């Protein structure tokens, strides 16, 4: 068992304006990953403004005081880099991996949009990116079978008013209503250096990065009254099961079983991570062995279980299966529930535990095999737990999970408030 899940150096600094800077040097390739976590996500969105954090993420690529519209992409790609950004309920991250000699360019670009977005933001840009985001919603959620499962599960798992009640992509109605002033205010409110973590991993030395960070970000003003998202940590159990059945243009019945578990980063969530691997990862998992191989009621490529790694409230644990031809949704739902419930009654064996830990271990090292994978995790641990060094504890913590802890967590999490979402192929003429 390794002593550390992170055998690379980690150095940190904090600028006077509150920007936290994390550097992890590694000369394996002549490349460097630059990553910014902003502590703002869809959990901060008030009613009527769903989808705004994500639409805002798009606007961050559309120019700032010293960067023309579309120039950001052109400069990064023109230096050989790749880039992207994502928004989830918890946070928004922006990242690029570039050949190491272009580190300074990447920092300049990030600083310009952290400090100088608002003057460059126009109605035309907003209208254009609103259309792009609406197309993203159609492409990812509306035009694919089962594409809206996540949109349906969230309101079943979290009550109205809870920060995870609505999905990050937002509603078409809210997106249509988005006005420019709201986005200008959004940037002024949340895109402050003291609400961000800058992480640089790869072919760079910490002292150089700290100096460059100070040069480009150092003069940006902090904001001292950043409003927190609503507190979602305590979700009272209702004692109810929630069942939703959807008739849709789907090729086969599919069932999702979901529960609220524990927040990402807590000891309980580590147990859930191992539990989900035993339940639904790989051909040796319980779901595969029982439903795909044993009873042969589920399609082998489409059984699975996973935790969703959200940190600010009990995170979802989801198990899913899709019916083989001729198998009814009821039969599938029964089979899936049976295997899920047995986590609390049929003890996990040593072989199951070892298999899960071996898979999680390799998965961990794969995630850390690239500089961008490492940068994103360091940004996460700094943002969510205040300390990048906590990254090193993650793998040992997973490897220390016991069968007893899994039985306890299963009994606790699976006992109540079950959400079951079923898709049924709609009758066609």
């Amino acid at each position, binding site marked *: 068992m390794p002593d550390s899940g992170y055998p690379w150096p980690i150095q940190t600094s904090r600028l006077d304006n509150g920007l936290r800077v994390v550097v992890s040097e590694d000369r*394996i*390739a002549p490349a460097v990953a630059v990553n910014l976590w902003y502590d703002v996500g869809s959990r901060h969105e008030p009613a009527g403004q769903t989808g705004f954090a994500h639409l805002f993420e798009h606007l961050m690529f559309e120019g700032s005081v010293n960067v023309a519209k579309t120039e950001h992409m052109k400069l990064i790609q*023109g230096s050989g880099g790749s880039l992207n950004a994502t928004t989830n309920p918890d946070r928004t991250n922006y990242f690029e991996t570039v050949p190491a*000699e*272009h580190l300074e360019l990447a920092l300049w670009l990030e600083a310009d949009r952290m400090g100088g977005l608002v003057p460059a933001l126009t109605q035309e840009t907003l209208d254009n990116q609103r259309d792009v985001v609406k*197309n993203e919603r*159609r492409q990812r959620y509306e035009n694919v079978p089962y594409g809206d499962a996540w949109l349906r599960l969230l309101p079943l798992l979290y009550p109205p008013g809870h920060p995870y009640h609505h999905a990050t992509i937002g509603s078409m109605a809210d997106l249509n209503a988005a006005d420019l002033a709201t986005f200008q205010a959004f940037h002024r409110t949340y895109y402050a250096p003291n609400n961000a973590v800058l992480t640089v991993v790869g072919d760079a030395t910490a002292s150089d990065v700290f100096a460059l960070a100070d040069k480009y970000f150092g003069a940006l003003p902090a904001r001292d009254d950043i409003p927190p998202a609503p507190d979602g940590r305590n979700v009272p159990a209702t004692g109810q099961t929630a069942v939703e059945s959807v008739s849709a243009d789907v*090729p086969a019945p599919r069932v999702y079983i979901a529960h609220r578990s524990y927040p990402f980063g807590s000891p309980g969530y580590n147990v859930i991570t191992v539990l989900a691997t035993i339940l639904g990862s790989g051909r*040796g998992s319980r779901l595969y062995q029982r439903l795909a191989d044993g009873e042969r009621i589920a399609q082998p490529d489409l059984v699975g279980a996973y935790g969703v790694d959200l940190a600010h409230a009990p995170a979802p644990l989801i198990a899913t299966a899709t019916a083989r031809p001729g198998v009814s949704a009821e039969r599938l739902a029964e089979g899936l529930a049976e295997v899920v419930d047995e986590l609390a009654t049929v003890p996990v064996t040593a072989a199951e535990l070892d298999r899960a830990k071996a898979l999680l271990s*390799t998965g961990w090292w794969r995630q850390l095999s690239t500089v961008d994978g490492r940068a994103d995790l360091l940004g996460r641990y700094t943002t969510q737990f205040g300390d990048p060094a906590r990254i090193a504890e993650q793998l040992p913590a997973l490897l220390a999970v016991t069968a007893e802890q899994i039985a306890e967590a299963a009994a606790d999490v699976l006992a109540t408030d079950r959400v079951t979402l079923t898709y049924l192929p709609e009758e066609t003429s």
Partner: protein
Amino acid sequence: MTLIADRPGPGAARPYRFPPVVRRTAAGGQVVAAHLPGQNLAVALLLLDVGAGQEPVGKEGLSGVLAKALEEGTAQRDAAAYALAVEGLGTALSTGLDWDSFQASVVIPVDRLSAAVELLAEAVRTPRLDSADVRRVRDDEATALRMDWANPGPRADAALRADLFGAQNRWGRPMHGDPESVAGLDVEDVTVFHSEWFLRPGTLIVAGDLDRIDLDALAAAAFAGTGGGPAERGGPIEVPLHSGRRIILVDRPGSVQSTLRLGHPSPHRAHPDHVPMTLAGTVLGGAFTSRLNHLLREVHGYTYGIRGDFAASRRFGRFAVSSGVQTAVTAPALVEAVGEITRTQATGVTEDELEVARSWRAGQLSVELQSPRAIASALTTLVVHDLPDDYHARLRESLLSADVDQVSAAAATHLHPEALTLVIEGDAAVIRADLEATALGDLLP
């Protein structure tokens, strides 16, 4: 002002060094390895000289069924025991197929690599292929394809491929087959295909810390019980261009988006214009900043994204553009896309655009030096296309030295906007009249 207005220039360029490549013959097969000192993870990949191109016409999807059937028990253990053995090491057997080759690989901490390669070889060389299991896997694969084909895209891809290459040819049919072709396979198809192709040694590709890896032992495991020579590859296939554009409408009632697939045949991988063609494709559609994405996404807001590129295998290639656009703007989006392809063919690229394209392609080669997976993939390219150890360094040089004239000439020669097939998968009742009104080409029935 709190921001620094001046954009910084680049620092000192780092040299590009592809890891040292080791090639050797061992235990009757070829080993190609890259040394990644200090790397905790390693990749082993068994590359077989059989691709979708070797599947008989009418038997499309055979390799996919065989790939899945490999894990349904071996000479030594049943399926459940095999899954536990592999996953107990912390890995999974991953398989892949393209037109030229089949691969099976493992990614794993280096200290467990040899055990993983033994299990990999056990599945590839000595699968049970029990009749009942093969039939079940075939049925599951047919179901999986039906699931996949319920998504927008696969039907449009198939329509484009058939129109470009002819459905009477294997390469005019979907690489992974379709639900019907897979459902029609029988057990003997699978067992015969295995004995004909999967018992030849092939090439073992390894990326990892070679100081901690015994390549000869890995080769002995990977090539045990194999024989037979490499396959006859066949030369490049001449694919005629269509005279005149045509539109193929694939109905998807109620669709809120139209899926666009535009394309025509293009040269095979070993064509001398490979680099300038790649760059022309990059300027036109290969990157976020490319012409097509800029126009259709950033200017018009028609789409979440649009991409276009030249792709090539050993024997043939194709230029293709793909996107999903909002139903209501299907016709104008198509007109704009064809217009941009036409303009690029006629007037070439600018130095400004080319500078971005070549720096991006070259820079990506540096960025991709990080992970064992990416290095193994680069080694695979060397083997499949018979390229030298210093290929990636040379490629980088040729990308960086390509000039506007060469790339514009490649665009002029290899783009054929007048011969495009335009496949649109969408709500026919809503978009048919608009498509006809574009006069972009004949709407095929």
